[in-house]
């Protein structure tokens, strides 16, 4: 007979407990039943906010339904345990049935602590703990303009960010003098406050709320000094309260401030009943982070397996991405250790604050705080946790390896039992073992087989470092090969394709690769073939990503967008009318893009050739909005109309856009031409930017908008148009030849040894002796340009590929739209 274990609560700890029981092979001795009050399978509460931003609940599940089935673990959802009969060993459920058990595990977690503020029952007052809470908030926030979050800890800031992203003007109230008082000292907090301020969060500290105002609905909060502010919604996140009500009812001992008292083996004061996770009062405290909760689950599993393991406390280090700023704190962050020596670095220019606390003898790192730049968090955490002897100049830790600091710890110096992933308790030894013994060669593989990096994800960069270092140590090649099918870098493949005259993917795979290819090496090869031979993209349709396959960007709902080229953003009223007429005829959603042209959305795949045919007949051509290729060259109106314009920036932009249109590259390319230094074309935010000067043009390269904006840097000043194009030809060809896949020019430059000075040498002084070749290669591309859409429109065989179903001419009836401001959009996900 198997012993029967009932787990009360199906939260994060309960799921981890079940998984560890399975992994330990204990299911042949025990039978598991999980009873959870929420209507969901155990989900990832740590990433709860992603539910708010649209991730479906299913994606947050920690283990799929099938997994429970496969392991014969019974899950009872939507059901609460309301009483326990300790002597009869039964648990009473709220559906009035009773379950008997041999062992009871309480994993009831905690609830949000709601201070007894007058008016807290009003509509519009919420907590932030469960999917249900967030669903309510999401609905309510639709009509809210102003919000107040009470409690400036981790959760409060997360809640504030969520509603701010929904356009709510938000204030955060904390009774302490600064936010994140548990993690940050006053100086560090002042840096954080500045960042939050700049992002529009109103910070109110050092005060308490007296009551909530309003009749049925909350309309404001009143502070103890009698002042008040208006609000439409309140979210309370001022701490947690262990869910010990069931334990109290059953007569188990709980702490004064709550929490089910357990010993180091997770047993409560009644034998056979255990408590793990946030509901447990272990080693004198409630552990409100997931890593210690998982550790408790591990201890209990080990005990049930007959091993001697104890919970003796855990590390409360955290790293977070808050509104616009990284924040991390670890160990003794606030420097409470007597006589410890704090070292600090403040950079008001970059808004970075770092503090590390050193032991009085200067030998060990005790803890620290990072605000604004937490890149060195993992390394510092390891130095602290593994008591690594500090160098004689410990201040070098503050500048960190990333800024060229003196002290660089190699991951290989860490002890084998150094815990790298604290969420899953994975040691360096285990990770190295997987690499050395099981031949794992990728981070994804390591995640799968060791679980490292699958919790909060904070350790992933370090896992990557260990992987690279270990492979290197083994003498294995650690060059960035493109994928499992080719042992080459992109640059090597470029040379192979060019030198060996390879014209198809299959040929390349058979000659130089192995396996059957994948979604990484296929589009990459397509891009190489296009950059080198400039053959029609559609010729290689089966290795193109969907956007290149159907020559349009795929949208939500499965339709495509149509972006005709409008060089330099210049368009005649007649052509505008054509776009209007075609948009109307096919009922397409119409929008001016950020790239000075017009996007028509919502075309079905079977409509694409017909629509393009009409556009082409009216003199339009493909805008390559779907390709990793030249997009737009933005222009300002320049000297033709503008009273400050120095040269004709529009004509030059059009000339350049037409020169490089269709040019395939490792990532997309954008350019801009401004008529004077006022820079209305935002040219310096582009891969290449040209700005008129009194004497000619200034050429800037390697700028970028997007996720990591970078200003383009000056390559040459006061040059004439011809020289400008010559330099551009060389620059672009050099980039196309050498950049890694999907690397914009700014990132490519950052990785180029010698940086801008080196690039200038190559482009201007021809230090590689390649300039002539680059120019020739580019001229070949220019001369062989063809409009990809025209090729499809004119070719019946290619046109035939644009249909929804191979065995029917019906359009795809699953495509649905809803109306929006006199136009339409796809039905929301």
């Amino acid at each position, binding site marked *: 007979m198997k012993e029967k274990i009932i787990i009360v609560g199906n939260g994060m700890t309960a799921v981890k407990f079940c998984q560890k029981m399975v992994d330990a092979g204990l299911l042949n001795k025990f039978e598991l039943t999980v009873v959870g009050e929420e209507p969901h399978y155990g989900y990832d509460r740590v990433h709860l906010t992603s539910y708010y931003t649209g991730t479906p609940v299913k994606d947050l599940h920690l283990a799929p339904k099938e997994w429970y089935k496969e392991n014969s673990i019974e899950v009872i959802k939507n059901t609460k345990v309301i009483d326990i009969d300790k002597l009869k060993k039964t648990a009473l459920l709220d559906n009035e049935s009773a379950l008997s058990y041999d062992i009871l595990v309480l994993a009831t977690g905690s609830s949000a602590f709601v201070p007894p503020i007058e008016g807290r029952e009003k509509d519009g007052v919420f907590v932030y703990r469960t999917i249900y809470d967030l669903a309510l908030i999401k609905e309510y926030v639709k009509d809210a303009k102003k919000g107040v979050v009470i409690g400036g800890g981790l959760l409060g800031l997360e809640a504030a960010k969520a509603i701010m992203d929904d356009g709510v003007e938000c204030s955060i109230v904390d009774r302490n003098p600064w936010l994140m008082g548990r993690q940050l000292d006053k100086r560090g907090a002042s840096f954080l406050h500045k960042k939050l301020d700049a992002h529009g969060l109103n910070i109110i500290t050092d005060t308490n709320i007296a009551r909530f105002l309003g009749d049925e609905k909350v309309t404001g909060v009143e502070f103890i000094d009698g002042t008040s502010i208006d609000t439409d919604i309140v979210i309370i996140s001022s701490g947690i309260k262990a869910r010990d009500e069931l334990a109290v009812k059953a007569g188990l001992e709980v702490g004064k401030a709550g929490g089910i008292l357990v010993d180091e083996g997770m047993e409560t004061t009644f034998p056979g009943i255990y408590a793990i996770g946030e509901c447990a009062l272990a080693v004198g405290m409630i552990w409100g982070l997931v890593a210690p909760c998982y550790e408790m689950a591990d201890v209990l599993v080990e005990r049930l397996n007959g091993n001697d393991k104890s919970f003796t406390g855990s590390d409360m280090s955290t790293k977070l991405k808050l509104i616009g700023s990284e924040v991390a704190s670890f160990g003794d962050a606030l420097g409470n250790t007597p006589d410890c020596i704090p070292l600090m670095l403040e950079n008001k220019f970059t808004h970075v604050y770092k503090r590390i606390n050193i032991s009085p003898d200067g030998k060990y790192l005790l803890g620290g705080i990072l605000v604004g730049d937490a890149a060195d968090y993992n390394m510092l955490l390891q130095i602290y946790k593994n008591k690594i002897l500090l160098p004689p100049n410990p201040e070098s830790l503050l500048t960190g390896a990333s800024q060229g600091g003196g002290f660089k710890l190699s991951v290989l110096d860490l002890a084998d039992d150094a815990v790298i992933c604290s969420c899953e308790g994975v040691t360096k030894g285990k990770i190295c073992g997987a690499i050395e013994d099981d031949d794992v060669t990728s981070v994804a593989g390591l995640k799968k087989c060791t679980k490292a990096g699958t919790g909060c994800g904070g350790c992933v960069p370090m896992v990557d470092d260990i992987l690279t270092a270990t492979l290197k140590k083994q003498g294995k090649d650690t060059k960035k090969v493109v994928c499992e099918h080719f042992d080459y870098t992109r640059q090597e493949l470029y040379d192979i394709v060019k030198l060996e005259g390879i014209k198809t993917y299959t040929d390349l795979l058979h000659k130089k690769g192995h396996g059957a290819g994948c979604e990484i090496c296929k589009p990459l090869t397509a891009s190489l073939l296009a950059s080198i031979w400039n053959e029609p993209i559609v010729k290689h349709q089966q290795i193109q990503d969907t956007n290149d396959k159907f020559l349009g960007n795929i949208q939500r709902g*499965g339709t495509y967008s149509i972006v005709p080229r409008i060089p330099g953003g210049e368009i005649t009223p007649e052509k505008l009318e054509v776009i209007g007429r075609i948009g109307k005829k096919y009922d397409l959603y119409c929008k001016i893009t950020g790239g000075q042209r017009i996007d028509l959305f919502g075309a079905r795949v079977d409509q694409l050739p017909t629509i393009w045919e009409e556009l082409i007949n009216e003199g339009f051509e493909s805008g390559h909005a779907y390709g990793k290729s030249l997009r737009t060259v933005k222009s300002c109106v320049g000297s033709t109309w503008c009273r400050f314009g120095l040269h004709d920036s529009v004509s030059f932009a059009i000339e350049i856009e037409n020169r490089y249109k269709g040019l395939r590259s490792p990532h997309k390319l954008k350019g801009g031409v401004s008529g004077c230094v006022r820079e209305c074309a935002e040219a310096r935010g582009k891969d290449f930017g040209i700005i008129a000067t009194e004497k000619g043009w200034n050429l800037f390269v390697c700028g970028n908008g997007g996720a990591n904006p970078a200003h383009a840097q000056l390559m040459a000043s006061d040059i004439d148009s011809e020289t400008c194009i010559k330099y551009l030809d060389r620059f672009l060809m050099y980039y196309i030849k050498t950049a890694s896949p999907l690397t914009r020019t700014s990132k490519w430059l950052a990785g180029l040894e010698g940086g801008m000075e080196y690039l200038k040498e190559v482009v201007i002084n021809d230090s590689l002796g390649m300039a002539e070749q680059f120019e020739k290669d580019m001229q070949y591309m220019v001369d062989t340009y063809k409009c990809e859409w025209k090729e499809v429109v004119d070719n019946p065989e290619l046109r035939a590929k644009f249909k929804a179903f191979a065995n029917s001419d019906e359009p795809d009836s699953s495509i649905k739209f809803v109306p929006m401001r006199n136009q339409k959009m796809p039905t929301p996900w």
Partner: protein
Amino acid sequence: MTSTTTIENPTKAITWHKTVKATDVPENGGVAALIDGQQIAIFNFTEKGEWYACQNLCPHKMEMALSRGLIGDANGEPKVACPFHKKSFSLETGECLNDSCNNIDVFPVKIEGDMVFVGL
């Protein structure tokens, strides 16, 4: 337009549906076919000399998209990657290969004459 025959199978009765001409499915590529109103993705995996079929619906965001995905393999396992967010699914088992996304249904394929048959 599809003709159907039922054959005996010891475990489950499969109905073979005649779908498209084999030459209508590009080499190392896929198409969608409508079978009794259901959208099915059919792949001509020339590189492995195999044919595969699966549901066209990607379980991630419920997009009818898999036939438009790129096929390939991971450690020898044939797979298709959804064009939307690159979730990959085994074409042998339907298992989602990169995370906890739901699995998909896969169906047997046979070629008779110049036609592709899918068993549902």
